[in-house]
């Protein structure tokens, strides 16, 4: 009997287009858009192309020679030089700029000024590079004149660590800040399980649909009906999350879920929470199905936005000003659990998130079960 109910419910969910769209296709579509929009910060440097730049020598001296050699040695990554230099006079450089053969001109005079015909990322890189050079030269000159005993030490520091700020991980794999968006997206997809939960509650309860009334008058126990429908919803939704995970990881090549087992455990709990939220909303008030759908969609979106789906820093802002929201927002808890797996080498923070999610799941399961399981109704 259970298998009969379970398999038919699975079939019913698989054929419901709106559910397939919201739980499977829409998150895949959104993740694809995210990939195009954000990609990965580690990809950016490797994928950058060498910038053609003109070096217009106005006054030839040791400093300009030094600058030219630094310009030649700059690179985005190994074997990917930052600039391809076309040295010449100012007039020929301007001609090259007008023809579009170079993206900018560095005028090698006393001030190292720059000349562009348009403004985009390449021009910003050229400008930043020149400004950085000027600042470094000033630092070295000032140290040499003010504190010459520290001159060699300063040079060593500048050679070893040209970046004064460097991001480090406290453990685990390298953390890509863009991954936060994908984690928030997967959390949102988990909460979209509420659509299945909503449909379950409507098709079981006699006061919400004729189908619920018909199923109510059969000799099959309500407990069995509820369990079969709920497990079918969990399974369908968890499968759709797995598909999303595989798509993001292997098709979009984003390094999400480096440890698949605990990652998928969180996904499973997320599915349970999402479906249970839908069943709770569906069972608690006798309002139209469309209104309840709007409520669950609104809650899922708001929860996801607060977890950093649109703007990563919002989570930290909320954590600072209203921390209770982060503690109870299921999307934040889910995305935090994902993030902690990739950042921390131990499982302390992950375990803490896991326990909170498990407790939340259990509470929602109990509430939704008892709200659906009513025997009789005051009105239908």
């Amino acid at each position, binding site marked *: 009997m259970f298998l009969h109910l379970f398999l038919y419910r699975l079939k019913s969910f698989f054929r419901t287009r709106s559910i397939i769209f919201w739980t499977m296709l829409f998150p895949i579509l959104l993740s694809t858009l995210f990939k195009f929009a954000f990609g990965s910060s580690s990809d950016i440097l490797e994928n950058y192309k060498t910038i053609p730049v003109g070096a217009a020598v106005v006054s030839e001296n040791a400093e300009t020679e030094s600058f030219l050699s630094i310009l030649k040695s700059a690179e985005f990554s190994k074997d990917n030089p930052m600039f391809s230099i076309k040295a010449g006079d100012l007039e020929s450089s301007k001609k090259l700029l007008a023809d579009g053969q170079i993206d900018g001109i560095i005028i090698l005079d006393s001030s190292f000024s720059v000349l562009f015909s348009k403004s985009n990322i390449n021009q910003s890189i050229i400008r930043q590079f020149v400004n950085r050079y000027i600042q470094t030269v000033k630092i070295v000159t000032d140290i040499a004149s003010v504190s010459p005993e520290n001159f060699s030490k300063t040079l060593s520091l500048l050679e070893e660590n040209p970046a004064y700020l460097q991001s480090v991980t406290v453990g685990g794999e390298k953390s890509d800040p863009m991954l936060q968006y994908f984690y928030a997206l997967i959390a949102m997809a988990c909460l979209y399980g509420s659509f299945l939960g909503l449909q379950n509650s409507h098709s079981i309860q006699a006061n919400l649909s004729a189908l619920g009334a018909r199923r109510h008058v059969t000799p099959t126990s309500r407990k069995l009906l509820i369990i079969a429908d709920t497990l079918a919803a969990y399974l369908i939704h968890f499968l759709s999350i797995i598909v999303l995970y595989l798509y993001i990881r292997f098709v979009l090549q984003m390094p999400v879920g480096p440890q698949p087992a605990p990652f998928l455990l969180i996904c499973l709990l997320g599915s349970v929470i999402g479906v249970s939220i839908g069943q709770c909303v569906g069972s608690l008030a006798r309002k139209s199905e469309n209104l309840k759908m709007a409520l669950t969609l609104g809650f899922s979106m708001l929860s996801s936005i607060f977890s950093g789906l649109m703007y990563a820093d919002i989570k930290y802002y909320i954590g600072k000003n209203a921390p209770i929201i982060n503690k109870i927002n299921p999307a934040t808890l889910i995305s935090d659990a994902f993030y902690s797996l990739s950042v921390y080498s131990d499982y302390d923070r992950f375990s803490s998130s896991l326990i909170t999610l498990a407790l939340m799941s259990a509470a929602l399961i109990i509430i939704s079960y008892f709200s659906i399981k009513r025997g009789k109704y005051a*009105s239908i």
Partner: protein
Amino acid sequence: MVIRVENLVKRYGDLVALDHINLSIRQGEIFGLLGPNGSGKTTLINCILSLLTYNKGEIEVFGKPMNPDTYDSKRKIGVVMQNVAVFEELTVWENIDYFCGLYVGDKKERKTLVEEAISFVGLEDFQKFYPKKLSGGLLRRLNIACGIAHKPSLIFLDEPTVAVDPQSRNKILEGIQELNRKGATIIYTSHYMEEVEQICTRIAIIDKGRTVAEGTNDELKSMIKTTETIHIETVDFPESLITSIQSLPNIYKTDILPGKITLRCSRGKHNLIHVLDFLKKHEIVFGRVYTELPTLNDVFLEITGKELRD
């Protein structure tokens, strides 16, 4: 007694939907519940099926009090809801199989039952169709098939022919009679008196949550004064003759409408002859003259003062 309802009261706030209603339904009957919209028919059915709570009274089905977990009784009951209750995402065959599976566990037995149910309602050509592809009549047939596939001994049909084409309606009514011949007790609710008159062996007329009359078709009609209604189409009937025609033997009520006169007659013979003689005597020009036997609507009208069709 298959169903016994005693002193049932159901309130929705201040509205009394069922007002101390009593009902007894015997094995093998096709019992009709007739009443206008809002009279309490569906509420009564839902209370008997233990879907609704009620404020007072007792309900027994198959000799046992009816509760949500009286599974033994539920196993013998089939329900055809007023609203179509099927899964939109499952085909005709799958829907019937699903609902039959809630009663019958054995797969082989269920397959036979499903095929028989499909044949019974005439949906052989539509087995792989989805509900949204079916017409209203076919959808109603599917609805019925889902309710009776497991061959229940007690079947509730709540207005099963609403918005149904005449062909499907006839098929449904014939099917119900067939089920009864095979041994099922049927409770049939409707506000279409013609259907109830056609198939029901015993009828209860309900209005405002109360049983206003109960009995066979003939018993109900014998309760009222009217035994015959005579309709006369006439161009011009003088007002001076109204009193005279009303004083003819057995005529107790006269309705004068433009172009038509309706005369209601109580028990007696040769009423039509008396009327025709009267018209001839006074040289009244008339068209068609026809007579009607009393209907359940007449019963309802005489008891409650209003028409069944509201």
